[in-house]
């Protein structure tokens, strides 16, 4: 908040990542600005998840710089890393809920670990988070195996939001949801971004979500960022992959009207 309104909360510079001696990312530069929703697209297997996992520290990189909140993650000590982990939340593609814990305990898990609040407040916050993502408080006592796919995503989002993070990483949040649930989920992300002021890094394949939710879009191809910018810029781009992606059979005619109009 000390910086300007468009300062970068995540800065990725010239990042190179190898997976089993195969170069997946080859010099990636990307920024996530405070308060924006960045949509991240690319062909299947282009390395979108690899980049996400590299940023959050689950995969090692060969070279390059990753900064979160102005701290170089390679030079951060343990307590700085812990603070940064606290300030971001991750929604994994399959939800990654702990199957041996109830929904409530899943959401409470990071709260208990980091904040050491009273039991009463911990439970109340878990219920508040569940309600924020549009669930009934009574799912608190259910086990993840009893939930539907859409509910699992919502619970996972509630857990990702448990500590009021400033950055939210979403890995294909609407995959596996029906179009109505997907639209609701996008709306939910937008509402949360507006009420909580979080920055969102969203890997997605869903053209509808890119349209509905994202402020900016970055496109990954051949291990590099092909293009980054607003939807209008994407629609106007002459890059062949972008043209077939945004003007292909899955694209809706009304977007082009909307963008041009």
């Amino acid at each position: 908040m000390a910086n300007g309104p468009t300062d970068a909360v995540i800065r990725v510079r010239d990042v190179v990542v190898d997976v089993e001696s195969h170069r997946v990312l080859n010099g990636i530069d990307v920024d996530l600005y405070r308060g924006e929703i960045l949509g991240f697209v690319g062909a299947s297997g282009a390395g979108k998840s690899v980049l996400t996992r590299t940023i959050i520290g689950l995969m090692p990189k060969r070279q390059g710089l990753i900064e979160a909140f102005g701290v170089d993650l390679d030079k951060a000590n343990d307590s700085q890393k812990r603070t940064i982990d606290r300030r971001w939340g991750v929604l994994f593609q399959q939800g990654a809920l702990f199957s041996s814990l109830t929904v409530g305990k899943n959401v409470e898990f990071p709260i208990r670990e980091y904040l050491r609040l009273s039991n009463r407040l911990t439970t109340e916050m878990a219920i508040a988070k569940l309600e924020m993502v549009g669930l009934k408080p009574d799912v608190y006592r259910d086990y993840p195996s009893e939930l539907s796919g859409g509910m699992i995503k919502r619970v996972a989002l509630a857990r990702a939001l448990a500590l009021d993070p400033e950055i939210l990483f979403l890995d294909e949040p609407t995959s596996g949801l029906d179009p109505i649930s997907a639209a609701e989920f996008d709306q939910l992300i937008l509402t949360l971004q507006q009420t909580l002021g979080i920055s969102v890094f969203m890997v997605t394949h869903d053209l509808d979500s890119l349209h509905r939710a994202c402020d900016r879009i970055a496109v990954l191809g051949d291990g590099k960022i092909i293009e980054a910018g607003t939807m209008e810029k994407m629609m106007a781009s002459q890059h062949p992959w972008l043209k077939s992606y945004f003007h292909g059979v899955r694209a809706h005619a009304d977007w082009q009207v909307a963008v041009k109009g």
Partner: protein
Amino acid sequence: MTVATLLTKQRGDGLDLFASGSWTAENARALEPLIDAVTRPNFPLRSVAIDLAQVDHIDTYGAWLLERALRIWSKQGCGAKITGLSEDYRSLFEKIRSGTHELTAKPPRPNPIFATLESVGRTMAAVGSDIQLLAQMAGALVLALARVSVRPTRFRFTSMVNHLERVGWLAVPIIVLITFLIGSILAQQGIFHFRKFGAEVYVVDMVGVLVLREVGVLIVCIMVAGRSGSAYTAELGSMKMREEIDALRTMGFDPIEVLILPRILALVIAVPILTFLGSMAALYGGGLVAWLYGGIDPVVFISRLREAISVETFEVGMIKAPFMAVIIGLVACVEGLQVRGSAESLGAKTTSSVVKSIFLVIVLDGAFAIFFASIGM
């Protein structure tokens, strides 16, 4: 990190509260007692005014703590007014306010005596359903075997050979090592105690009969249940979790025929072979100890062994082996197919597969002991 504070000023039967600092997750622990204090006043409270003008940051934690206080005050019949809330946080406040924040009451805890009785009853019913499931699986297996023997090309021979390698060939070193050690220990203990009566040479009878009739097959079956039965349960369980078994079914394949029959047949072939190898290793271990520790010459050992045991002794052990294999395989597969969605249930079923198959192997061994005694073997 800046701290959060809540200043209180009493004004007649009302309170003026001045909040300042960061009302965020980091400070929630310190803020909760402050909120508790102002919601439990020691005088009849009529009205509250909260000034948030000095607050520089609020997140859901701070918003909920204020909302909690507002709810308590409204229950006490006390009016509350919030001033100075920055526009940025208004939507957050509304989001928090809109929730019910209440769980429906838990069903009351049942009487502990009834609960214990109920759990005993459920366990008994579970034993019944286990037996039923085992019988069903055995029936389905016989049917699959019948179908396969009518059209042998349907049999998954490659799969069976693969399992045979894993449960048979790869198990040989550990089985031979363990039975060798058991044979050695039996002989050592026998010599140590029989020496008191000067009857060391009868150790050969004891080791021979015990290993060939009982210990060889039992040790091998316990090892196989722990090593291969658990692997079967875990494999089938994770296939069940990832809907692979349902996928097979929808493509018109019978999972019993494709997955379970080759596994159980592999066990039925492997366990007798392992039992034979194990028994030989145990006799070798016993003979070695008898020679080195008891001073019984190998030639004496072998001639004594020839008198002590007959082909019948050997047969008794070997006949049991395939039946044990079927029991281990059936239990492992039944448990595997009962795995539900969670990782915990996979672990629980794998454990119960090993426990149940070892239990049933020992029960079956007892039944065989009665059977062989009554037919005079």
